[in-house]
């Protein structure tokens, strides 16, 4: 299905948020995920279904400052 991930349109064979993380080889511990501006709790990544044209934001930790 067509999804917008971090502003880019992508076509992926997935049904849940966890599938997207797996397809992109992203460690779920290292990212906060927003679907259509709702934050998804870590424990719900595998049960949150996606539909055509959903907008996902993967927010990675950025810890530097000094």
């Amino acid at each position, binding site marked *: 299905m067509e999804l917008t991930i*971090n*502003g880019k349109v992508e076509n992926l064979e997935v049904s849940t948020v966890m599938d997207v993380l797996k397809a992109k080889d992203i*460690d779920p*511990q*290292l990212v*906060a995920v*927003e679907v259509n*501006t709702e*934050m998804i*709790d*870590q424990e719900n990544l595998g049960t949150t279904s996606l539909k055509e044209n959903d907008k996902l*934001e993967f*927010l990675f*930790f*950025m*810890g*530097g*400052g*000094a």
Partner: protein
Amino acid sequence: MSFTEDQITRYSRHILLPEVGGKGQKKLSQAKVFVVGAGGLGCPVAYYLGAAGIGTIGLIDSDVVDLSNLQRQVLHHTPDVGRPKAISAKEKIQALNPDVQVNTYEERLTAKNARELISQYDVVIDGVDNFPAKFLINDACYMENKPLVHGGILRFEGRVMTIVPNESACYRCIFKNPPPPGVVPTCQEAGIIGVVAGIIGTIQATEAVKLILKIGQPLTNRLLDFDARTTAFREIRVKRNPSCTLCGPNASITELIDYDEPEACAL
């Protein structure tokens, strides 16, 4: 308190702005900003806030200046290598603007001292380089009801977000807990383009000035991500998370937490 002729000249480009004026400049001169970290972000933040005539700047940093800091920590000069960062930064700010009172704390921010220190200031700037401290600052600002300007940098990228407690999303609304130690690289391990610290730090300083003057729209409920490789900003809308463990209705965090701190990266 009224301004001297020199002060009116010094701040004339502020005073000229209808949104600032003499009244606004007075607000700046009465404001107290707490800058946590006198490094890559803290230096440009404190330098511009000093130039702007912020009345009191608190600077907390337990590190000494290292030669590898000078590529981006612009308040520290070559002869400062080996000297405490807080002192080095204070000297440069006061050389630029003797009107500014600079309080220095040569220590780390901890669960013990954070609330007491933060309670003495109006706005807090996150200029630290590790996650335990970023979470500690977020939590302490929420508990003391102080606006916080969060910042982060890594490699070619940076991020800013302003947090107004009970009004906008906090850091924990997005990131529940610090990542496991060692899995997210630090600037020391992964590098940082020096000027990215300047870009993010000056945006943080801009946010602080706006918060003090109460002008414009703060960068709340928005994460601003910057990528120097493409010179592109991306704004990600966020909102308060009902399951936030700090600011949600069923919050479980009521005390500050000292997470196991990895070796401070002396960037």
